[in-house]
């Protein structure tokens, strides 16, 4: 009995330690963002004086060289369509893979899964050339296209697996009730897989929002830069303004956190698998 309690205690302690180690960098960023530069210059963990302020946030938001306000709007312009488009396309394709019979289905699916393993760095140059030929370099649309292409395979994989867990009789019942294939998909199947759709949406949104690499390749006009691209520019010219830099980081982090917070209950359901019998 005592031994059991001891094991539980040490397990809890370990979890706490890992949790703390995990959160310390974030705590540093947060502390730096809400205090004036003078207070944190010798370390954010020193609290001889503590003057909370929002000045850093305002500074980052209206930064003269790289205003985050514009960056956030630009990011949203990419992240929202960059989430919706692949989700829509991949969900329809995934349903086809899950429910319809067609030749070469397995091979096609395997190809898609295999191509998911290609690292982004490998396709950087080809992507740039394709986009240049299409005249889509330095446009949000081009970036949306690339993110959609990058998102479709994994969403397809995820959604197809989810579809195959749904009881097919529900779809058959709808068919007998008088629904066409499209109606079955949009009125019966899609509402049944809202958790999976939301999970995919949250992950894809975070991915697109946090992306730095593809944006770096494709967007370069100062006024078109995305939020993630602007953070390095917040450093300042002659000295690093840690306060503004960290405040900018937190502002940019806020979007995916909010998305997750709002959709969390669906997200968890989708990950666990949600089948109503």
């Amino acid at each position, binding site marked *: 009995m005592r031994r059991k309690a001891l094991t539980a205690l040490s397990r809890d302690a370990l979890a706490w330690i890992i949790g703390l180690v995990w959160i310390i960098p974030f705590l540093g960023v947060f502390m730096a963002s809400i205090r004036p530069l003078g207070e944190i210059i010798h370390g954010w963990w020193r609290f001889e004086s503590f003057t909370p302020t929002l000045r850093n946030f305002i500074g980052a938001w209206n930064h003269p060289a790289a205003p985050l306000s514009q960056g956030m709007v630009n990011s949203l312009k990419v992240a929202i369509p960059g989430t919706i488009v692949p989700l829509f396309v991949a969900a329809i394709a995934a349903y086809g893979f899950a429910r319809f019979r067609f030749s070469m289905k397995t091979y096609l699916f395997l190809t898609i899964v295999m191509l998911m393993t290609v690292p982004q760095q490998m396709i950087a140059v080809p992507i740039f050339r394709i986009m240049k030929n299409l005249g889509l370099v330095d446009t949000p649309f081009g970036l949306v296209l690339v993110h959609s292409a990058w998102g479709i395979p994994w969403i397809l994989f995820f959604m197809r697996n989810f579809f195959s867990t749904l009881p097919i009789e*529900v779809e*058959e019942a709808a*068919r*007998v*009730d008088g629904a066409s294939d499209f109606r079955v998909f949009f009125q019966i199947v899609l509402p*049944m897989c*809202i958790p999976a759709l939301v999970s995919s949406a949250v992950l894809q949104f975070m991915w697109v929002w946090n992306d730095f690499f593809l944006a770096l390749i494709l967007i370069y006009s100062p006024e078109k830069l995305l939020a993630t691209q602007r953070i390095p520019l917040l450093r300042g010219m002659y000295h690093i303004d840690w306060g503004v830099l960290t405040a900018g980081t937190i502002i940019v982090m806020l979007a995916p956190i909010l998305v997750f917070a709002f959709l969390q209950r669906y997200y968890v359901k989708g990950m666990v698998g949600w089948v109503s019998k």
Partner: protein
Amino acid sequence: MARVYLEHVTKKFGNVVAVNDATLEIKDKEFLILVGPSGCGKSTTLRMVAGLEEVTEGNIYIGDTIVNDIPPKDRDIAMVFQNYALYPHMDVYNNMAFGLKLRRFPRAEIDKRVKEAAAILGIENLLKRKPKELSGGQRQRVALGRAIVREPKVFLMDEPLSNLDAKLRVQMRAELAKLHNRLQTTIIYVTHDQTEAMTMGDRIVVMKDGFIQQVGAPMEIYDHPDNVFVAGFIGSPAMNFLDAVILREDGDLWVDAKSFRVKLPPTRFETVGEYIDKEVIFGIRPEDIDDKDFVPNAPPDRIVTADIDVTEPMGSEVYLYATVGPHSFIARVDARTTARDGSSHQLVFNTDKAHLFDKKTQKAIR
């Protein structure tokens, strides 16, 4: 309301033949049961009528129309599934109204039909609930309601009661039969449960390995099974089968099972002619073997002394698991029997009701 006609229908999945050359007429307003063990092709047959499986060969008619290439939505059928298949994101009302909405019925008509069906099924108070808030029996009713509101030509039911507990199943069995009387619609009902088949249908179709074995009214099939499979499948406990030889001695007919022999009624002469002195399968239902103590004036040439291995009291009767020589069989006798485990007891074979089957073809000798 319509008749359904299957004309030499075959269904193949790759090399597997699920339904083999089935020809079957389901009359208008008939309650027809497809019964058989799993994998016998009964569900596939139903799904072909529904349009959920394509027909490999042959034709299916609903009314006078060949429906082979008509999608399910245009066949004017309704189907009830084993796992209910309710739409989880819609409440009960919308589950039932969905098919009518798709067919663009006026709102008032939809409302009227849904409420009527709900009243018939006693689920008026559940209309606002989601399927996950319902018990199994309630979901079953909603699934039925969804079919009823459509007022289709044909109802298709695929093992609709097998997910219910035993007590509810018995109750729903009676309600379904009642519902059929009320709706006066053609129903095709699939089950693996021979009790459901016996109690509910106007006619039964027994299937095995993709072949239709026998079609007939429940008692007709029970009393006159065409072959060993049907005889063994319909009836519970199942019919006893014993290897035996037919003998003719002094103008009498006997079934000789080596360790015992019983006399057949003289009416059998007409049918067993060519089987005399040959091996046959002797079939007798458990209720046609009685405890001698309760058969006054039992003819001695039908009495067999058997070792009783196990007695199973069922309340209203007792099942005796008996052995004579190499033969084991079950007798269903009066509850007052004095037979005990391990004792030996005299049983009477009611050979008027005995069944004889050809050993090679397994077909009934009639």
